[in-house]
């Protein structure tokens, strides 16, 4: 049996290791184009912040990790997939035959339609090379404009702030992290960041980037609202999209990402998808969606590999979850944090101390949550949501005091 895996990120690596555990004899090939050892994009902000070296981003730390497992790593980009002849065509001109394939090609950052973004010192923060480029320009005191205060933008914000740059964050939405936080939380995070010295502007749209005619800075960033912000470096964090372009003509069904069934198999038999590129079932809604987050990346990587190896395991769907540290203020969101149709909500808000919990119920079940300013036992929110536990009279108690989630868990599940 020959397994090929496209992508050497967390999904591809976990899948390769799982395949090896399940099948000692199989041939396992991981194809990834980036000229680096397998690394974690999630760790890049900590590299930029100077907390770790590049090696600290590596997914596996033993240099012969993959050799020791008999996993072959091919450094190349995949140009196309032929589902019928079961071959990959690679950028180098080589082809690679497979019996079963995992598409774990991840996602790529997208640029907004703003003129002037194709110039030097304007970077995404996605790859290790991006991090090197940003580090080159982001010296202490330099003026940096960060486009986008979504989840990724907000993590990069923390890293840039630690580099002592003069930072302006521009977000089109009406609050920070609008796809993870509600109005209350998103605005509290904004207020906190401003209090920490970061210039955060929400409901602000960037129109164009032009060279600074005075020469005092590299660029002037012009907003639709009429503002002009000097910048020596611009970091673009305005969203990511699944890497599916190379699958054109493969016959594999693609919507936003590669559409998979409950076994993470695509529309082509023997070809699976996992991680950021996969459009699988949403745990909450049962509908297909792309959840480009680390826990889903590793869970789907592992389960896809098990299914590929013949050990059939049904995937119950991905639960959206995020945790964010915005200059020391920690927030989380889970599942249907915006609320379920016909559901009820409970909240606890202490604006002065930046503490907030919002719980979303559907009947007597917890289906979503947001927390701000809490670091103790937050994972239990996942436990309560994903066990679909009937909270019984604990729903009323949680409605009075949403901070008692751990007690609710112990009382109802233990």
């Amino acid at each position: 049996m020959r397994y090929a895996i496209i992508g050497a990120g967390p999904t591809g690596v976990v899948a390769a290791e799982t395949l090896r555990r399940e099948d000692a004899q199989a041939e396992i090939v991981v194809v990834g184009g980036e000229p680096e050892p397998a690394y974690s994009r999630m760790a890049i902000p900590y590299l930029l912040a100077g907390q770790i070296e590049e090696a600290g981003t590596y997914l596996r730390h033993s240099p012969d990790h993959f050799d020791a497992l008999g996993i072959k790593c091919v450094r190349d980009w995949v140009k196309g997939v032929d589902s019928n002849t079961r071959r990959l065509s690679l950028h180098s001109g080589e082809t690679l035959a497979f019996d079963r394939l995992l598409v774990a090609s991840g996602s790529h950052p997208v640029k907004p339609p703003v003129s002037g973004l194709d110039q030097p010192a304007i970077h995404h923060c996605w790859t290790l090379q991006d991090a090197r480029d940003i580090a080159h320009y982001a010296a202490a005191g330099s003026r940096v404009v960060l486009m986008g205060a979504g989840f990724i933008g907000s993590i990069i914000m923390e890293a840039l702030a630690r580099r002592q740059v003069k930072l302006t964050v521009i977000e089109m939405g009406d609050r920070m992290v609008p796809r993870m936080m509600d109005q209350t939380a998103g605005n509290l995070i904004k207020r906190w960041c401003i209090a920490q010295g970061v210039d955060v502007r929400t409901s602000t749209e960037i129109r164009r980037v032009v060279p600074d005619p005075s020469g005092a800075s590299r660029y002037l960033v012009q907003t639709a609202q009429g503002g002009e912000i000097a910048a020596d470096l611009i970091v673009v964090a305005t969203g990511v999209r699944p890497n599916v372009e190379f699958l054109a003509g493969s016959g594999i069904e693609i919507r936003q990402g590669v559409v998979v069934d409950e076994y993470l198999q695509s529309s082509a038999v023997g070809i699976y998808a996992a991680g950021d590129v996969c459009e699988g079932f949403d745990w909450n809604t049962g509908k297909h969606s792309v959840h480009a987050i680390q826990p889903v990346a590793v869970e789907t990587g592992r389960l896809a590999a098990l299914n590929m190896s013949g050990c059939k395991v049904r995937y119950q769907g991905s639960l959206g979850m995020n945790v964010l540290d915005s200059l020391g203020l920690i927030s989380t969101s889970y599942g249907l944090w915006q609320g379920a149709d016909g559901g009820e909500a409970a909240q606890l808000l202490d604006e002065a101390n930046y503490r907030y919990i919002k719980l979303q119920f559907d009947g007597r079940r917890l289906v979503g949550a947001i927390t701000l300013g809490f670091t103790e036992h937050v994972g239990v929110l996942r436990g309560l949501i994903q066990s679909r536990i009937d909270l019984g009279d604990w729903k009323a108690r949680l409605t009075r005091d949403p901070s008692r989630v751990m007690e609710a868990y112990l009382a109802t599940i233990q």
Partner: protein
Amino acid sequence: MMRSLSITPAKCTGCLQCEMACSFEKEGVFNPARSRIKVFLFEHEGRNVPYTCTQCADAWCKNACPTEAIQINAVTGAKEVINSLCVGCKVCTIACPFGTVNYSHATGKVIKCDLCGGDPACAKACPTEAITFIDADWTGYQKMRGWAERTDTQSSAQA
């Protein structure tokens, strides 16, 4: 034989000796707020429930970690945070459905129970044997693993 913590809430008096012992062993201070085991007091029911990491067989925290910073101690079976590898991203704290991995502002890393290297201070400190350290096969933690098998995508694969 691997050993693990066994907790019998009915025997717990809520004295918090385990929290004191844990914080002193792991943090060098007698401060329940910095303990990795936590006793939840249910005053109305008169019930106290000590609670900490179950060292699940297929650990959610370990699987979710993007930098290989949670590793299995080959001797004790405990899932341990390797501080030099932890970048403080906190993904494990939201991935653990038992809520037993917490972020520490003081260190910028996550903390969790590591069974004190095979001689857990909480069990030694417990005066009523509500917390004992016994052969893994006998622990009530199977209940929690059962939860995982019921709901979870990862453990169901073990079946």
